[in-house]
């Protein structure tokens, strides 16, 4: 919800590039869970705080305006940005939950996920490295 104005250009540019791309949902290599799209949604929408195995699940999101975030919201969460904003407004202004912590860059995302067995994130599928495990591509 911050500094929307200066990133608008980047969003438009990113969207045109992202049209062909895919988003990969990633976890720590030691994570043995397989996750359906529904289970990924539940983690990212704060409907559950655990992986199917019972281990704690900590979702990591991107800042607003990062191109892959729009792709994640539409391909994985199957919603549009304003619906997601309204969804979080319901939870935030009733004190029930806060949105996931966010990062600004792909390298931050990769290093966090590679270092934390409880975290789950996502990245442009073309940028996946061997340090993380892909649980789904959308």
């Amino acid at each position: 919800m911050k500094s929307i104005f200066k990133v608008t250009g980047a969003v438009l540019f990113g969207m045109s590039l992202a049209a062909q791309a895919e988003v990969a949902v990633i976890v720590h290599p030691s994570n043995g869970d397989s996750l359906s799209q529904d289970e990924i949604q539940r983690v990212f929408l704060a409907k559950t705080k655990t992986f199917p195995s019972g281990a704690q699940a900590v979702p990591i999101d991107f800042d607003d305006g990062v191109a892959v975030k729009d792709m994640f919201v539409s391909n994985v969460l199957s919603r549009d940005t304003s619906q997601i904003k309204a969804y979080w407004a319901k939870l935030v202004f009733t004190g029930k939950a806060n949105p996931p912590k966010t990062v600004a860059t792909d390298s931050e995302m990769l290093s966090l996920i590679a270092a934390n067995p409880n975290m789950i994130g996502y990245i442009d599928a073309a940028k996946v490295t061997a340090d993380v495990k892909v649980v789904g591509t959308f």
Partner: protein
Amino acid sequence: MKLRSLPAVSLLIVSLPLSAEVTINGFGSVVVGVSDDLNFRNNLYDKDIGFKPQSKFALQAMADLGENLSVTAQILAKGADDFDANFEWAYLSYAVNDSTTLRAGRLRIPFYRYSDYLDVGFAYPFISPPRTMYSLLFSTYDGVSVLHNFSLSSIDVSVNAYAGRVEETFFSTTTPTAGKLNNAMGINSQLSWQSFTAYATYMQTDVNIPVVTVEGLAAQLNQAGVPVSVTDNLRINDDKGTFLGYGLSYDDGSLVFNAEKSRVDIDDSLNLVNNQWYVNLGYRVRSLQPYVYYGEAETDRNTTTAAMFPAPFRPGIQAAFDGQMYEFTETGLGIRWDFHDSAALKAEYTKYDDIWDRNAATQVGSQDHKESMDQFRVGIDFIF
């Protein structure tokens, strides 16, 4: 800005440890409206464009104190209150585990589907939820609440059980009276499955609202020889109040459907049982969401109380009850445009139709002088 009646919890905010992570969010609405120049059902607007009745601004601070303890305070300034700021929420929250949370402080009474975020226009399609249904003008209590979430196979269940007390100015638009709801207890359960959400809510409380006109009427009747035990059936003095509500919604991302129904009752008082319901249908096309709704509110007639009075008084008592009868409908047509990630523009036309005549002198049962009122509003809701 005048801050009234801060719950003790809010004082904690000023003495937070420096290490606490504080999140600040906010929301607001700027609404302009115009309506027929009628005093119809506490009409909020008139023929001159009004900005204040439904505009509002709010700030919320949430501090994570660590070890599953957090503090949340939300300050809301409503145009209707001259933008006096009030604490709508102020509470300590303790997460017992992933599925159970205890809260204590000032909290929202979960009467309706949108109660928890009643003021957050950005979170729902309407400019404000239908007035036929959202008729109770108080919304917070001071007390405790247990939130429990769990899943039954693919159904998500959320239960909120609460207890506390409400001190408010009741009947604020007709006979403003400082009153209390003591021993308020309630439970709200919500089930979500795929695109469907259903809820049911029940609350009961001891109601004390000494409305001047009713107190005066009771005193006069006592002087005329009617026993206090009989006139206590008029006064709102420690009478059991109950609220029962339920609703169903559907939202598959495109099609949106909502229906709610409720019943409000205050036993043994000069007050009629209120019933209200509405249905709402909307459809999202990209950033546009047109919607329609239709609602009705009506009272049940009470003939049992008058029968308790000595015969000469019965017609007068019955007239006092019948004078409170109402039945009206609300038809709304609007559109929401998400022109920005964090802001939505809405335009809404509402038509109100009286079914019972508002004139108390008219005989109950007639439908003469049926009145209507048109209202048009445009608003922007935003979050930050």
